């Protein structure tokens, strides 16, 4: 129960930050943080992806102008796909293959949502929306670029901190030895 609650609260926090705070900031507004966390949890081979994807997908569905269920479905599909590719296709689990997997998942997520919106618009279930336009593709491209930059920065920071902490621990060990 505690495990579920923790991830549900995490999903709420992520969606609220994404929709209201990051959406007002030029570069960060194009990064889909919920999707990034879902991919991260999926490749981490963790069951925690289930409560996180469900809660964030549900909240995104409520706040989105798109029909309910699109974000939820897209997040679940991406979590399956990311997990499957990570475990069965990628032989190398270092930074670059994982970054590539993230890019692939972003494409799948966006294409799924845009495809579903165009089908629903065609079926007149959802109001007519121009989906396959230059701006949309430009935005997807920018999302990929900014996401790569963002995760690269995170990775560099992680490596830097890891090296610093481990070197400090080593010097301490030597001191006391």
């Amino acid at each position, binding site marked *: 129960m505690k495990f579920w609650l923790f991830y549900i609260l995490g999903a*709420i926090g992520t969606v*609220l*930050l994404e*929709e*209201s*705070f*990051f*959406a*007002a*900031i*030029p570069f960060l*507004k194009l990064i889909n943080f919920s999707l990034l966390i879902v991919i991260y949890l*999926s490749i981490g*081979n*963790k*069951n925690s992806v*289930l409560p996180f994807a*469900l809660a964030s997908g*549900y*909240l995104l*569905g*409520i*706040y*989105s*102008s*798109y029909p*309910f*269920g699109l974000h*939820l*479905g897209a997040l*679940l599909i991406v*979590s*399956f796909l990311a*997990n*499957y590719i990570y*475990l*069965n296709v990628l032989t190398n689990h270092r930074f670059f293959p994982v970054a590539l997997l993230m890019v692939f998942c972003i494409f799948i997520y966006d294409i799924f949502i*845009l495809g579903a*919106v165009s089908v629903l618009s065609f079926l007149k279930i959802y*109001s007519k*929306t*121009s*989906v396959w*336009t*230059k*701006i*949309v593709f430009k*935005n997807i491209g920018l999302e990929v670029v900014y996401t790569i930059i963002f995760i690269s920065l995170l990775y560099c920071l992680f490596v830097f901190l890891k090296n610093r902490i481990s070197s400090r621990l080593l010097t301490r060990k030597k001191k006391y030895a």
Partner: protein
Amino acid sequence: MRFVFKGKILITMAAVFVLLIFLHSLNVLSPLERGIFKIFSPVQKALFGAGASFNRFVENITFKKDLNEMDLLKAQMRRLLIENAELKILAEENNLLKKELGFNRSHSYELVAARALGYNSAGDSNLILLQIENDRYHAEDLAINMPVVAEDGILVGKIAHIKDNQIYMRSIISSQSAVAAAILNKDYTTGVAEGELNYSIKMRMIPQSEKLKQGDLIVTSGLEEMMPKGLLIGTVSKVEHDPQNPFDIAYLTPLYNQKNISKLLIIKSY
């Protein structure tokens, strides 16, 4: 084949997904969704305000502007432009009144106060999520295409979508946005002001015979349903003149900075 989602997990995921969609379509989850929206709206207000402030702070560092002075001048310019537009419209109305004896029309708008809570993308345009601040009104009282103005009467956008209790506004700079507009020049040239790439506004199909100049004011022409005449849209920043083309294109600078969106007013009727 290795796969973390096996048996129970896979079935649970699929079942929860189907159940949520089913319950949502039956409106069983509506009270829960309204509750979520209501509970988190103060948090969202704060986050949205913080995001906008952070953005301004970064802009301030990047461009090294003296913001106070700039803001003051911008506010003064906006006030003067509004007064100018009002005077021009009054002059035009005065002429009409002179022609049509006894005709009198007063503009009293029924306004609904709203507040921006977040951004949302729909296709190639950005939508802004609004929350009604006046308890007297509900989302079902409003309709698509109702104009949304800033507190000083500058047109910011139109309602694009209403879903349950949420209202989504499409900004005038957003792609797919189109507003019947008029240039406050000698001929009162009319046209359609279209949003471009979520950045600026373009007015097409202006006959070359019309004389336009930089700084000309653009207002709503009132030639569309639900949109009153005379709401300020922007000023002409550039006119594209192509001798091969019978029409000119005017590029407009919107008077309202979308980054400063917070409190807004929806014109319900006029």
